[in-house]
């Protein structure tokens, strides 16, 4: 393993963990509102897949996408400010937690409708295929999304037209309160790809090195023009579905078992053991991540709110009925 890469993984996951903790605190304090879906436990998925991607690749994600944005290079300041609903946010305060966008980084959004990311991703993939480019699309969705028609429709079209899309299922085993065996006849999600003759694999989503390796291979397949790929990452969310959910439908034992496989702590232990990162360096990285998060909260708090209600409804301001006499 390359030391730099491992260090990067560690820092990414650490920043992700601390960022989400800060977001939860800010939510409780009333600075963030709406639905806030956090990522602790699932960090290895976003980090492993996005670090395997190139800057030219596109990313389409769900409402649980803060960490995807961060790893993609959107600053913690811009993500936090978006959660605060401020102009300094990556969607200028109009989107919120579930709708992060940064087109410059080819981060084409957070979408809040389950199953919505797949058709969008194949559309982007279609354009890339028209170009004959080696760029790919990384398309994220949860285990709950695979029972939407759009999942099957999109897999079929992607396979039919050999679109350069890496479908990444973040299988955390729950669709809010419904456990996967209660929502899916086929709970091994990667196996569904065979219906479309699509390459697929399941990987331990708690192990960032494994995710990274699998994503590299999958992206290579996609870039070679061999068609789309379905990568299922088995993972777990430690918190409730959103801040509104306590997660009471899961046993303490189950949560404890998965916490024992914490992707961040596992990597940290292994990195020290293998001598990939020195203990002192870990402290420095922790300090750096902590500061980045604190600065993000400060930045967000100071950023002004947006003030133009009609900005972005249409390409040009349209003289339409604007409502309210």
């Amino acid at each position, binding site marked *: 393993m390359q030391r730099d890469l491992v260090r990067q993984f560690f820092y990414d996951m650490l920043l992700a963990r601390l960022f989400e903790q800060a977001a939860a605190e800010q939510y409780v304090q009333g600075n963030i*509102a*709406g*639905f806030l879906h956090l990522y602790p436990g699932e960090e290895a998925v976003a980090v492993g897949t996005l670090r395997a991607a190139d800057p030219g690749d596109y990313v389409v994600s769900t409402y649980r996408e803060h960490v995807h944005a961060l790893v993609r290079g959107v600053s913690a300041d811009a993500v936090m400010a978006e959660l605060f*609903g*401020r102009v300094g946010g990556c*969607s200028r*305060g*109009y*989107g*919120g*937690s*579930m*709708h992060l966008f940064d087109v410059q980084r080819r981060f084409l959004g957070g*979408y*809040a*409708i*389950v*199953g919505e990311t797949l058709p969008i991703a194949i559309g982007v993939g279609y354009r890339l295929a028209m170009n004959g480019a080696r760029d790919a699309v990384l398309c994220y969705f949860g285990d*709950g*999304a695979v*029972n*939407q*028609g759009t999942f099957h429709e999109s897999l079929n079209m992607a396979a039919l037209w050999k679109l350069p899309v890496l479908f990444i299922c973040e299988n955390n085993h729950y*669709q*809010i*309160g*419904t456990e996967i065996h*209660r*929502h*899916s006849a086929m709970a091994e999600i990667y196996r569904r790809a065979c219906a479309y003759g699509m390459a697929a694999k399941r990987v331990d989503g708690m192990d960032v090195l494994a995710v990274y390796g699998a994503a590299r291979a999958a992206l290579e397949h996609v870039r070679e023009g061999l068609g789309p790929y379905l990568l299922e990452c088995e993972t777990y969310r430690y918190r409730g579905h959103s801040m509104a959910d306590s997660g009471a*439908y899961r046993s303490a034992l189950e949560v404890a078992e998965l916490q024992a496989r914490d992707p961040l702590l596992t990597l940290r232990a292994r990195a020290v053991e293998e001598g990939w990162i020195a203990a002192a360096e870990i402290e420095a990285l922790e300090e750096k991540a902590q500061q980045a998060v604190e600065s993000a909260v400060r930045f967000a708090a100071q950023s002004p*709110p*947006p*003030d133009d*209600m*009609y900005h972005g*409804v249409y390409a040009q301001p349209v003289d*339409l*009925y*604007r*409502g*309210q*006499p």
Partner: protein
Amino acid sequence: MAVMMYWEAIRRAQDEELARDPMVIVMGEDVGVAGGTYKATKGLYEKYGAERVIDTPISENGFTGLGIGASFIGVRPIIEIMSVNFAWLAMDQIFNSAAKVRYMSGGQLEAPVVIRSPGGTAHQLGAQHSARMEKVFMGVAGLRVVTPSNPRQAYGLVKSAVRCNDPVFINEHELMYNMKGEVPDEEYFHPLEGSEVARQGRDVTLFGYNISVHWCLEAAEFLASHHGIDCEVVDLYSLSPLDRAGIKASVSKTHRAIIAEEAEAPVGVGSEVMAIINEECFFELDAAPVRVSARNVPIPYNHRLEKAAIPGAKDVVHAVLKMFGKQ
């Protein structure tokens, strides 16, 4: 009369109907084990079992279609769609199947389904979770649309909807589930058609439905005490069909009309009520009717912009004062 919350009223109605008729089933995302996102199905899974209180996958068009298909041959499904924003995905089955099957089968089949779903703008849920979709549903022939403004109506409308042989869409509101109100102790069936005068008045009619009834009532109290304007408030709990006679009667009495809705104005409840006023009692009017509605934008996340996008009691007051030349 017992005082209960809106969600409790819906839960009670479903409980009674499940107990009465083994063909009644409840289905939707997290309605079973989890007891419902807004608790409207709390305890029903334990009481009636997994076959009749069904936790579905996230397959809105699929499971809504399942309910509709089952209703063709005798099942009486109550389908909960977690939020109207996800009902877009089930439009095919609702519009193409449920709303049309009686007609296109020459009256052989019917789709006695109830589809319940909360709409409205809550607190900073962002553009994709803040739709107000009643205007979409009410424009489709074959579908009934009702929208309770209080627990009594919520209870009675669910009861009547289950017994009705047409598909009924019940438009609820995310912010209203904890609202308290009196509900009759005995079984009560609220009519699926008509309107209710929520407050008698002489000077102007304020039309509202669901949450906007409360803005109208609040505005009416304020206008009475501060400006001596006596508002009538008409609660349009049935959006399809709209109560032409009720609208006409009230406007013929007050000669002025204001329609308050949480949705954007274009192609909305307000436009429809205005059209009815035009058709039914144009010559009764002393002033041009006015709509109070949302800004014509996707709902912004930022809380100040969000608040500014959605109307409320203040906007109703403002519209009334303007109509009376007091502002």
